[in-house]
Each structure stands twice: as C-alpha cells, then as structure tokens.
C-alpha cells in the first residue's frame, strides 16, 4: 500500500500544510484503500513547502514540493491511482536537488521529516529508547558521563561549554535533590532549529533528558519552552504521555530503581530567559532576571538545588552518542569541535530551511553546495551567525570552518545555529541597528550599561542611518561597546555590541558612506534614498494625497512626479502605491 506523508512542522503549516492534509483526507473518503495518510515534522527543505512524500510500499519514495490543495486531485489520479509520478512537481527521488542532502550528516535530525512525531512506536521502530535502556540497565552513571566526555559534545545553545564536564559538575555537587532543565526558549530572530527538532522528533529530546537525569542523579526535569511554539508544546505533551504509558518515565523506569518525571513550563516571552539563571528565576515564577554567577546552576540552580541545563539540540545528540559510542561521534568535526551542528538557513539564500552538517565544513560549502547559493545569483556579501549575540562574517572570510574557535576569532559566535545570508542589497548598518533594536528591547534592565548603553548605541545608529551621523560617533560606538561588554552580568549584555563591532570591523566604509556622503549603498535606509515615479503610474493621485509635504505633482490619470526639493523621504508614497510605480534609489 502507498503511504502519503505530509510535512506539518510550523514551516509546512504556515505554507498551508493543514489544508493540503485535509484535501488528502477528503480523497481518502473516496479511495479508502488507495493509500495511508501520515504526517511528519520538518523535512528541512522549508523553501519547497508544502512537501508531500509518496512511498510506494516497496521501499522507494519520491517527494513533491509546493503542493497546494488544488494539486491534490492530480496527485491522487495520476500518481496514487495511476502509478505515474508527476515529474514537474518532484523535488527528490531521482536526481533532483540531491545536493541539499549530500553534504549533510543527520544525527540530531535523524528522524525529523521521517517519522510521525505523534507516534512513539515509530520512534521506537527507528531505534528510539534503546540508548536510554542501555544506559539505565547496563551502564553506571559515571560511564554515561565518560561516554559524553569522549564524544566531545559541547553545548549547542550558543555557549559551547563541554556537556560531559557540565554533567560531571552537577553529579559531583552535594545534595540529594537535583534537577534537569531543557532550555527550549529559542529566541534569536531567524533561528528555528530547536522548534523543528521538538516538532519533528520530541522523543529524542526526552530520551536525552532521561539519560542525563540518570547520569547526574536527578529525578525531576523541566522543559522551558517558548509559548510562541504551541505546536512544539503539544508534541512534547503527547510524547511525555506516551513515554509514561510505556514505562520510560515515571517510577521505576525500565524496571530499575530510577524514577524520572518531566514537566513543561511555558515561557512568557522574554528573550533574556534563554540565559540560564534568568530561566531558573522564570520557572520559579519570578521576573526572569539573571543573577551573578558563581554559584553556577550546577551547584545552586532551581530552588537552590544543583541543576543541569542544556538546550534542545544538545539533548537530542545524547541518545545517538550512547548508542554509537562517543568515539563514533568524535570522528566528525575538527580538533576543537566535534560532531554535527544544525543550522537554520534564512535570508537571501536559495534553499532556506534546516540543515545539519558535520563540524569542519566551511561556511561557503553550506551556502553554495548545500543551499544552492544566493537568490537571483546576486553578490554574496556576508553571513550573520549567532543572532543578536553574534556578528557578521564577510564573504571574503567564509572559507573558514564551522568550528567554535575559528568562528569566535572573527568576532561572531557559533550561537544556537541561526545563519542569515545577506547579499549586496542588505545594508550592514541597518542590520546592526536591527539586532541592537532587539537587544535594547529585550534588556531586562538590571545592569545600567546594558539598559542605557544599548539605548545610546541605538540612538547613534539611528542618527547614522538618518544621515546625521558624525565620524566621532564611530569612536563612541567602539567605546560604548567595550563598556557594555565589561559591565553587564549576563550574556545578553556582554554580547549585545557584537553585531555593531563586527560590522564596524569589516564594513567600516559602509558606515563612512552613510556619514560622509549621506548615502546608503544598499538602498535600504529610507531617509538617504531618492524616490521617483516610473511609467507604471496610472495617475490615481493616492500618493499625491498621502504626501505630507505636497512634493508630488501631476494631473489625474497622467504619470506623477516628485519634487526632490520638497521631498522629506518619508517613504509614504512608496507604501501607498498600489501599482509598484514608486521606486527608491
């Protein structure tokens, strides 16, 4: 029997996946014996959503991209019933887009887009919970920790602290009551790795947490998940209930003396809660503000007890490591960074979506070999790594390897895995302003330099992008950056200047063009642009009415013009035009 599998991660749903699913459901009423309908998580090729995979029951499968409800009828008639693939809609199966998966090494995403995340049986069929069983019934806690140490796994949330060492500290901390926390408060704009893992393979994260709990001697765990991820939360609840039914959670896990329970805490929308001490405060029901470390959570964390915090991707690696051995994991990667890393590809790249590559590949390889290069083959300018805490790496340096040290040397950070690709139409000053606006708004306000310093920096950037900057502003940015970095308690403040510092370092001339020539080379900063009206204008007079300074003239039903002397570059004409006739240059 044929199987139809539809990608229903958030990316698939946003693109209309549920409507496609319902269309197949309707068809199923007419042809109940023709196929089995299933859903799965994010397949990774978000750029071709909605994705529908048809398996023939003999091991072969092919996938259709950009499926709409209207296309379902033809898929049923020609493919499911007729047995002929519809070549023009294919994304994979024969020789299409193989490059996307060729260079990838899927450890964390091993089940994403393959299994139905709502079914623990499918997870078990793929080898799920074998690692936890082995750890609990055949290994001592110290042996589990040693295996993780051997693997060289480092925290995938951004910090990159060695996971095995962290577990060891928490295990050795005195006290009977210990906690495990999974940080699923993924907040970087442009990052969606953790969400896709939770939606596509929630049980892998739970299994990693069970193993961690056993290793450090904790019996209680929390998953702190963003409330903005309703689908991920629903998936987790389902997976926890099923695990409990199977005896993988609760009392006497796998028939051993080990008890383990996992609770979900929904975050309430504060970026700073990704910082571990702020996250703990938030679970305790308080304002999520970081505190001074030490003591580290490994000594004194949730309710003052030793607590181990890792992020989603870190835990998802653990079952694979226990099952295949730390050495197998350490075979991937570089001297300093082992294993694989998941990246959320976004921005001006042809194939946006989720990729998992071994450490040690170069940034260029990810962008050009895996993701097909830049949209419209424009000129590649830079990548932004690490979100608001990271920085921009110019195209000329993108032959460096994915490796914690090498990336840190550029001034960016590995971060949690958001990789935003920028082309010649992206203004680097504007990007710096974008991230600083974000950190400014999300600063919890505890440390003066973070609260006020980022505000002053933002004001400077606003002046520069408005054409009112001075060269002295650039020195002030440097100085403020150093002060904020030195005088902030937590990672948010310490890293907030990074986007500004890296763009200043690699794209200083772009700042200077804004200041000296009052021009935005990428045509982004609206006050530095010239607006004109082209022949698409129908003379509808809407822009003329909207213009606050009466700079637009022209008779009704004739092409309008803009008086550049009167124009204040507010961009209103551009946004009101219904005919795309206003151009900015």
């Amino acid at each position, binding site marked *: 029997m044929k199987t139809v599998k539809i990608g229903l991660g958030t990316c698939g749903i946003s*693109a209309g996946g549920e409507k496609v699913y319902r269309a197949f459901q309707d068809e199923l009423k007419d042809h109940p014996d023709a196929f089995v309908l299933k859903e799965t998580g994010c397949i990774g090729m978000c750029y071709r959503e909605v994705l529908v995979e048809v398996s023939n029951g003999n091991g072969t499968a092919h996938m259709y991209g950009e499926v709409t409800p209207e296309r379902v009828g033809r898929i049923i008639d020609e493919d499911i019933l007729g047995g002929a693939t519809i070549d023009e809609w294919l994304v994979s199966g024969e020789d299409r887009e193989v490059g996307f998966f060729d260079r990838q090494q899927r450890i964390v995403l091993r089940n994403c887009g393959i299994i139905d995340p709502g079914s623990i049986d499918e997870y078990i069929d793929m080898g799920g919970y074998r690692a936890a069983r082995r750890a609990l019934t055949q290994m001592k806690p110290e042996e589990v920790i040693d295996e993780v140490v051997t693997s060289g796994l480092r925290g995938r949330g951004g910090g990159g602290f060695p996971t095995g060492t962290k577990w060891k500290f928490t295990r050795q901390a005195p006290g009977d009551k210990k906690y495990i926390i999974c940080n699923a408060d993924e907040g970087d704009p442009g990052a969606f790795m953790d969400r896709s893992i939770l939606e596509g393979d929630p049980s892998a994260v739970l299994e990693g947490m069970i193993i961690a709990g056993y290793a450090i001697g904790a019996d209680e765990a929390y998953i702190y998940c963003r409330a903005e991820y309703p689908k991920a939360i629903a998936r987790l609840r389902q997976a926890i209930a099923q695990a409990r039914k199977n005896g993988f959670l609760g009392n006497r896990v796998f028939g051993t003396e080990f008890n383990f329970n996992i609770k979900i805490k929904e975050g309430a929308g504060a970026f700073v809660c990704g910082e571990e001490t702020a996250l703990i405060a938030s679970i305790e029901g308080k304002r999520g503000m970081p505190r001074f470390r030490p003591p580290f959570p490994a000594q004194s964390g949730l309710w003052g007890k030793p607590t181990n915090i890792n992020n989603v991707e870190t835990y998802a690696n653990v079952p694979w490591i226990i099952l295949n051995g730390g050495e197998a994991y350490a075979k991937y990667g570089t001297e300093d960074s082992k294993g694989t890393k998941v990246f959320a590809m976004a921005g001006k790249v042809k194939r946006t979506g989720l990729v998992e590559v071994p450490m040690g590949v170069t940034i260029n390889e990810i962008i050009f070999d895996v993701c097909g290069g830049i949209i419209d083959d424009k000129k590649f300018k830079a990548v932004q790594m690490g979100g608001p805490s990271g920085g921009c790496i110019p195209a000329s340096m993108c032959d460096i390897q994915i490796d914690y040290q090498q990336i840190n040397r550029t001034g960016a950070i590995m971060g949690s895995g958001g990789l935003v690709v920028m082309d010649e139409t992206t203004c680097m000053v504007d990007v710096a302003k974008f991230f600083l606006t974000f950190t400014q708004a999300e600063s919890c306000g505890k440390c003066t330099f973070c609260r006020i310093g980022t505000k002053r920096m933002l004001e400077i950037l606003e002046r520069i992008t408005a054409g009112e900057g001075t060269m002295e502003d650039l020195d002030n940015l440097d100085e403020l950056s150093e002060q904020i970095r030195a005088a902030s308690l937590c990672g948010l403040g310490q890293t907030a200047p990074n986007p500004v510092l890296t763009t200043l370092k690699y794209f200083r001339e772009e700042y200077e063009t804004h200041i000296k020539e009052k021009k935005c080379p990428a045509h982004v900063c609206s006050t530095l642009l010239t607006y004109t009206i082209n022949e698409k204008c129908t003379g509808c007079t809407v822009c003329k009415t909207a213009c606050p300074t009466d700079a637009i003239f022209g008779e009704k039903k004739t092409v309008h013009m803009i008086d550049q002397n009167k124009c204040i570059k507010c961009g209103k004409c551009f946004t009101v035009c219904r005919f795309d006739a206003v151009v900015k240059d």
Partner: protein
Amino acid sequence: MAEQTTDKFKPFNVDLWKYDGQAGALIPLLQSAQDTYGYISEKAIDYISHVTGIPSADIYGVVTFYAQFRTKPLGKYVIKVCNGTACHVNGAKGIADTINDELNIDYDETSDEGAFSLLSVACIGCCSLAPVIVINDETYGRLTPAKLRKILRSYKQKVKKEAQTATDQG
C-alpha cells in the same frame, strides 16, 4: 460583555487553575487567566493575589516583565507582523508601514472600534515566504505593499459587513 467581566469578576474556571500551593505557579496562573479572558485585568491580578498570597504589586511586576501578557483586550482580528531576520531583510518595515497607513494603528495598538490589533513577532518559521504576516490563523506570505493593501481592504469589508449584520439583528 466586556464590562460585565470587569465589573463583577467571575472566578476562573477551577479546572484551569489546579493551584495546589506549589511555588512557581504564578506564570501558569497568569497564562490561564489570559487564555480565559484574552488579557489580564486588574481584577484578575487582585484575584490571583488573593489565591496565592503574592502581593498584587509583585504580580504586576511579573505581568509587565513578560511580552506575552497584555493588560488590555485585543481586537477581533490580530495582525502579527513577522520581524525575524529573514523578514527584516526582505522588507518587513514596509509591511508595517503599510498596515499603519491603511488601518491607522501602530505596534501594540488596537483600532478604535476594536476590529484590528497589530503585533510584532519574532520569526514565525516560514522564512521562505518572507515577508510574512499572520491574521488570526491565516498566513500571508511573499507580500508587497500593493498585495497587502488588497488583503487589508478585504478584511475591512468583512468588518463592515459584520457590523452591518450586528445592527440589523440588534
């Protein structure tokens, strides 16, 4: 109806609450309050204070710290503009400007007649469709100001029709 709930505050649905005196329950309590009423009123804060013994001022501090909590009700149609990095570099600002111009509301504002609310959200996960907005549960992608204006006008029509039916019936 809104007046009724604020004037005479009905206690929350007990099933939703499940408050068992455990520490750390404040945020889940506030979340269920918001789920039930759409926002967190002063009465809700007082009620939670009464149940938990946490001073109202502390609860207010928590409410205002987190972006999720609202102290005012939302409009009938909630427009979320994605301001993730991909949408930003693909022109999310122009999208917000267009909404601002067409509906006369800014971020975190609700239009006078309570029809539309405008919110800014970080990545909603369909970066390939950038720039993107979500109106209630419907996603609109690959927007241009012209395309967006058409969508907004269709919603305005809808609001008008609904108001008309309401007056006809009432």
